């Protein structure tokens, strides 16, 4: 079988001298959706940020290959241009910069990096208008400053909208479901589902099983204390929902105490 889209091997990362990821292993193939679940502080967001190249996090050991390339050697913008997209847990406001202007700059930067023709304003608008509808946001969003004055739900939908426009190869969704009501959750999920394709892989980070009712994953991983401690199919999420994280902890406890003994 071909090279996996993403292969994370024994990844260790720390922030401010504190180790958060303690040997993560994860393989995502094109076309697959992987859900990563875990309690607060388990390292889910750290993993997402390390994949996107945030410089506050330092990788102390391990490797990440993306389509066979060393992802960790690339700057955040190079990763983006190579097709890695992060839907932020807390999307950032950029005052005075319209969403349209920002997204056109981003899309053209990526197209340029790939040796494609840059889009002019008209081509760009044609392209984005259909995508706005996909996440049920009004077109006026395009003329508003990036995320400024947006509700929590609008910000999350805006992330999915951007993903739809930029058409990444690997999309990492960092708790895109948090703070969404059930209607917004459905919108976000259907946006993501419409982007599922045999060429594209997803890493969906979430607290709750609820999202996975709408975005049905191929694999579910449980991240605890900076390691993936259990992997399974979509039924693992259901079991987790029913029995809680303590079940996983208890199940692991004897093994890890043996290991440390």
């Amino acid at each position, binding site marked *: 079988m071909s090279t996996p889209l993403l292969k994370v091997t024994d990844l260790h990362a720390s922030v401010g001298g504190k180790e958060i990821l303690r040997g993560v292993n994860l393989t995502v193939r094109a076309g697959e959706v992987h859900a990563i679940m875990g309690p607060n502080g388990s390292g889910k967001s750290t993993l997402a940020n390390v994949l*996107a190249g945030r*410089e506050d996090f330092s990788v102390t050991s391990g490797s990440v290959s993306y389509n066979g390339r060393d992802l960790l050697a690339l700057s955040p*913008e190079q990763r*983006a241009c190579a097709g890695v997209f992060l839907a*932020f847990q807390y999307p*950032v406001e950029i005052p*005075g*910069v319209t969403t349209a202007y920002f997204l056109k700059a*981003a899309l053209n*930067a990526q197209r340029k990096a790939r040796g494609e023709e840059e889009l002019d304003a008209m081509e760009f608008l044609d392209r984005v208008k259909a995508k706005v509808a996909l996440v049920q946001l009004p077109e006026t969003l395009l003329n508003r400053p990036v995320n400024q004055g947006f509700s929590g739900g609008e910000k999350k939908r805006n992330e999915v909208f951007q993903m739809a426009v930029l058409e990444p190869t690997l999309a990492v969704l960092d708790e895109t479901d948090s703070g969404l009501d059930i209607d917004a959750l459905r919108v976000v999920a259907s946006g993501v589902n419409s982007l599922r394709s045999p060429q594209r892989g997803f890493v969906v980070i979430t607290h709750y099983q609820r999202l996975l009712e709408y975005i049905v994953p191929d694999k579910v991983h449980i991240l605890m204390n900076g390691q993936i401690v259990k992997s399974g199919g979509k039924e693992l999420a259901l079991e987790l929902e029913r029995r809680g994280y303590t079940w996983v902890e208890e199940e692991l406890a004897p093994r890890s105490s043996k290991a440390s003994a």
Partner: protein
Amino acid sequence: MTPQANDLEVLQQDYKYGFVTDIVSDTFPPGLNEEVVRAISAKKGEPPWLTQWRVRAYHSWTKMAPPTWSSVHHPPIDFQAISYYSAPKPKKKLDSLDQVDPEVRATFEKLGIPLEEQKALSGVAVDAVFDSVSVATTYKKKLGDLGIIFCSFSEAVREHPELVRAYLGSVVPHSDNFYAALNSAVFSDGSFVYVPKGVRCPMELSTYFRINASNTGQFERTLIIADEGAYVSYLEGCTAPMRDENQLHAAVVELVALANGQIKYSTVQNWYPGDKNGKGGIFNFVTKRGKCAGDHAKISWTQVETGSAITWKYPSVILQGDHSVGEFYSVAVTNNYQQADTGTKMIHLGRNTRSTIISKGISAGHGQNSYRGLVRILPRATGARNFSQCDSLLMGDLCGAHTFPYLEVKSPTAQVEHEATTSKIGEDQLFYLRQRGIATEDAVNLIVNGFCKTVFKELPMEFAVEAQKLLAVSLEGAVG
């Protein structure tokens, strides 16, 4: 005759349209006293009233000391070491652009300045008559048909002495402040605009057309009058980097708007800021003030200040007429070791007068940026309103931003609002943009342009585009 000398002559012929005074070869020895002031006036063939005015200004100046209240720091200036009259000399002509400082050329490229203009700006002999000179000539004819006067200050003194006499010093008196008094005594030349009653000036008037003619001089004087119901938009400056051997520049700009008259004055200032270590660079100590002399008059100042080692300027508006409006929109950038102390004064005298102040300060490197503003509302100014917003953006840890808003409200019916914010260019914002594929430098520009948007939208279109590019060049390498 060499072709080059011939070209020079062609250029000089065009000067007769009034942008530059006659070229004389002499320069006064350094030093300033009453004799020097009288000699300057005599050189320029000025009428006695103007000579008297200069002399009075000189005597006021001798009783004054340089201001020390601002936040800028520089070694004391020896005013007796400056030569106060130097006939404008054409800059040394170069044979080709290859002889121009490569750094300057690189900046031209980044600003997208057309080749012919690059040559003219850097003093390279051009083959044809420089485009903008002929353009300016065409414009002058069109303006003349409408009764609009747009000429050099010296020409105005000769051709329209009654207008100059009526308005000179009516907004900035010769004894106003140290640098204004100095300017009044020794000013070299400048621009004069008069727009007659009810005339709307059909184009932006720009000193840009004059920049190739000669150096603008250390002590420039500008006087703009919009008569009743008249409108004029005036652009000052140029985005191309301007170097000058004179370190001190003390200009005075006076604007007068009569009833229902409107003046929009836009500046893009990009004087040489000194090198990365803070050596050299222009000291720009300018007095700019407008007076809404009649009811419903309006004066707007918009400035983008990226150059000079030190900028000290407070474009102000005296709101004398009832219902008159004053506006100040400013972007000031300081990078490396630049210092800027800038802001405005809005003096509300008339009833229901309104003023708006939007100030955006950007500091990078070791740059120090101060906003200093005064809103004064006098008892007669019932129903006066002011809105002020002062935002500072910091890039890095070594720069500084300071805000000094002064409010003096003596009318109980006045409404005054002041908002101020200071933010650091956020790592979060940068990462967000980079994660979408935008390179660090472009991400910084995007954030900065967003920050300045409320000011840029006040600039005439092409000027706004140039200002954005200029900001990008000024802040190059400030982050990352």
